[in-house]
């Protein structure tokens, strides 16, 4: 009934009907679903790749069940594409594109993005890029195997990488993916600036929206040089130019600068949305106002600013001027201050709360607990003197998995379980959710803590068989342990898919506001109709997003749209 009225009121929104509605829609919620499920599909592929190469490392040379024997070239292609897919086709689309698209209009009280057709184009370009990256794995010569950082001359000269077609398609796919996020990013920023509900001032915007928009701004400002570098690399590969060829006046170090100028801000591009999601969840389930809303926003901006000053810490031993390394050590360690401050704020928010450990809350708390490990181990790598030893070891690998896994996987599960009722109108099963939570978190630590130890032992990355190195061969039990934990973790993901499917089919009805939360998305139906609210009843905003447990009120929540 309400839905019919809403659709009627939004005649101008009418898009295509039937099946076309789902593939040719300009509705931000449908586009969010498209991004979400494409991202999940890619995550399954990335996870399968991890399974294959971890099996190879644990049992070198033996055929991997479900794959077969892993050749060195295939191993390189697997690790390269695992990294690329997990960052560019899982973390970015799910955290920024899917939740950005779903949440920004709903949380600021808009009926849609300001450029719905650009939004649709963004997804279509993204889909093409996803298909291309998968195609690149199966072309003649195999997938690109020069690591996700693609340092030339290995990536630029086919005589060196032996994957002429694979590396070019890989590069085109990555470039297209950037174009997709460029289009999406413009949309996010303009929507937040121009389409807020009446009364919503700068400090009434939910933190997650701020974070996604700050992340989009970071992305927009940092991606240009990488696109320039990627074009040059593509020309080197296909047209025979010599931009990175030292024998013809080019410079291979140049690519590293262009890549990491984007590559480091990119870390914060995915981190900030995850932090925003966590802020929404811990305030809701501890029934507390966020400790220092303005501190969080300013710290996020400070992080964004600093993130432009730190990129060369990836190149300490790459042959840059050692004096430059000193500057970047200072800036890199300085960035620990805002990040530490954000963690302190989140922990302080818990003080005095009434903490309900629901599944989304468990995920959000796990994010903080695990991310701290990733954060503190980063200090070792940012300090130039210690990086001489740690650079390109498994310590680096374990460190960034302790940041990226909480961001991309834990953050996503937190957001998904929290907003599932809004997305599908059904509650998820809490028991299955908790089984899945513990079945993911415990094995996760058992995968990467052994890898920290291996890194301390001097084991370098991207080597398909450590039996060739006498000093490393004896640490094999740790590799087997990590692989075993990975398999356990992957098995527990079936619980999640089962839970998702079952709850979607036959879950308990959710109602408008199952978590008793304040932000605007909980004031409309679940799932929200086309246009989000009836056109004559768009929400207005009267206060900030985290007014929980205000003294003198009977309810312990106070939605943003209720007057007085």
């Amino acid at each position, binding site marked *: 009934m309400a839905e019919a009225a809403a659709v009627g009121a939004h005649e101008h929104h009418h898009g295509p009907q039937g099946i076309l509605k789902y593939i040719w829609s300009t509705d931000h919620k449908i586009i969010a679903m498209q991004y979400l499920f494409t991202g999940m599909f890619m995550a399954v592929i990335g996870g399968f790749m991890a399974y294959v190469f971890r099996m190879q490392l644990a049992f070198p040379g033996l055929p991997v069940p479900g794959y077969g024997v892993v050749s060195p070239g295939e191993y390189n292609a697997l690790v390269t594409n695992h990294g690329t897919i997990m960052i560019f086709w899982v973390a970015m689309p799910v955290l920024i594109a899917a939740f950005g698209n779903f949440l920004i209009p709903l949380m600021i009280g808009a009926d849609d993005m300001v450029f719905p057709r650009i939004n649709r184009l963004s997804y279509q370009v993204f889909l093409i890029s996803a298909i291309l990256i998968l195609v690149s794995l199966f072309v003649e010569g195999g997938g690109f195997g020069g690591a996700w950082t693609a340092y030339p*001359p290995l990536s630029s000269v086919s005589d060196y990488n032996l994957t002429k077609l694979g590396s070019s398609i890989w590069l085109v796919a990555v470039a297209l993916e950037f174009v997709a996020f460029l289009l999406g990013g413009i949309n996010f920023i303009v929507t937040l600036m121009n389409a807020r509900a009446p009364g919503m001032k700068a400090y009434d915007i939910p933190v997650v929206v701020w974070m996604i928009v700050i992340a989009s701004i970071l992305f927009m400002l940092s991606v240009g040089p990488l696109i320039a570098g990627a074009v040059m690399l593509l020309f080197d590969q296909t047209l025979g130019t010599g931009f990175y060829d030292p024998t013809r006046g080019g410079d291979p170090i140049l690519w590293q600068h262009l890549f990491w100028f984007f590559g480091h801000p990119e870390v914060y591009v995915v981190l900030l949305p995850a932090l925003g999601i966590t802020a929404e969840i811990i305030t809701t389930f501890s029934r507390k106002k966020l400790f220092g809303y303005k501190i969080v926003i300013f710290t996020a901006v400070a992080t964004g600013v600093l993130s432009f000053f730190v990129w060369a810490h990836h190149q300490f031993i790459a042959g840059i001027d050692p004096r430059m390394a000193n500057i970047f050590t200072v800036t890199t360690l300085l960035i620990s201050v805002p990040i530490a401050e954000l963690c302190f704020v989140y922990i302080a928010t818990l003080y005095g709360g009434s903490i309900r450990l629901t599944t989304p809350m468990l995920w959000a708390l796990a994010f903080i607990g695990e991310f701290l490990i990733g954060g503190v181990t980063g200090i070792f790598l940012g300090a130039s003197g210690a990086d001489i030893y740690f650079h390109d070891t498994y310590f680096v690998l374990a460190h960034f998995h302790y940041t990226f896994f909480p961001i991309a996987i834990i953050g996503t599960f937190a957001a998904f379980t929290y907003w599932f009722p809004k997305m599908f109108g059904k509650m998820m099963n809490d028991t299955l959710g908790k089984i899945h939570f513990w079945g993911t978190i415990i094995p996760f630590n058992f995968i990467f803590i052994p890898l920290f130890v291996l890194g*301390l032992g001097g084991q370098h990355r991207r080597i398909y068989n450590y039996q060739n190195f006498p000093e490393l061969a004896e640490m094999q039990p740790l590799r087997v342990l990590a692989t075993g934990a990975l398999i356990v973790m992957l098995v527990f993901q079936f619980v999640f898919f089962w839970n998702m499917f079952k709850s979607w089919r036959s879950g308990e009805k959710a109602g408008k506001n199952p978590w008793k939360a304040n932000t605007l998305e909980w004031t409309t139906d679940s799932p929200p109709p086309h246009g989000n609210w009836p056109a004559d009843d768009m929400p207005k905003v009267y206060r900030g997003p985290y007014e929980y447990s205000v003294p003198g009120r009977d309810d*312990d929540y106070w939605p943003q749209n209720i007057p007085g």
Partner: protein
Amino acid sequence: MIERMVLQASSYAASVDGLILLITVLVGFWFLMAEGVFFWLIFKFREKPGRKAMYITGEKKSHKKWISIPHGLVLVCDVFIIIGAVKVWYNVKQHLPEPDYEVRVIGQQWAWVFQTPGPDGVLDTDDDIQTVDKLHVETDKTYHFKLESRDVIHSFSVPVFRLKQDAVPGRSITGWFHPTRTGTYDIQCAEICGIGHGVMAGQIVVHDAPEYASWVSDNAAAQ
């Protein structure tokens, strides 16, 4: 900490390990503190019937100090780490002590080629000894290495020396090491360099003085 897993075999290995220990202590303190407070708060303020959450904005000075004091302390710890890191870095990468010997290290797909001075002790003369995948050096001597690459980027990494430096095609990069312990140790390639990256294993053989002299004379004669 690390020396239990990987030997310290060069003059600067101990200082790198010392820096790592310093960071571990400072960072470990903050980590344990944060996690401790975090779990204690979750336990202390779990949902109990009849208890309402407090209303704290965190905007007041008396509240903000709980953030700003740790903030300042983290900054102080950072300063200590920066000073330690730059000191070690300067010693290993910026400062070049006078060499006793020079060697040339060349990375190529997928082997290490080493050029060691012959009996005259000078590099780039006719009696130089060329070896593949095995670098022979003498203990307690300061070495300069000239690092080159013939094709793609490689990285010359000797974990027991705490030494790592990328070899970039088109450049000759100079560095130094000073072995302090005899033995045979792994050289790894630390930068992916193609399908043979996993087999690009070299070894560095550190001899004592008489053994090294006999190795030089044997091999110089053979050439």
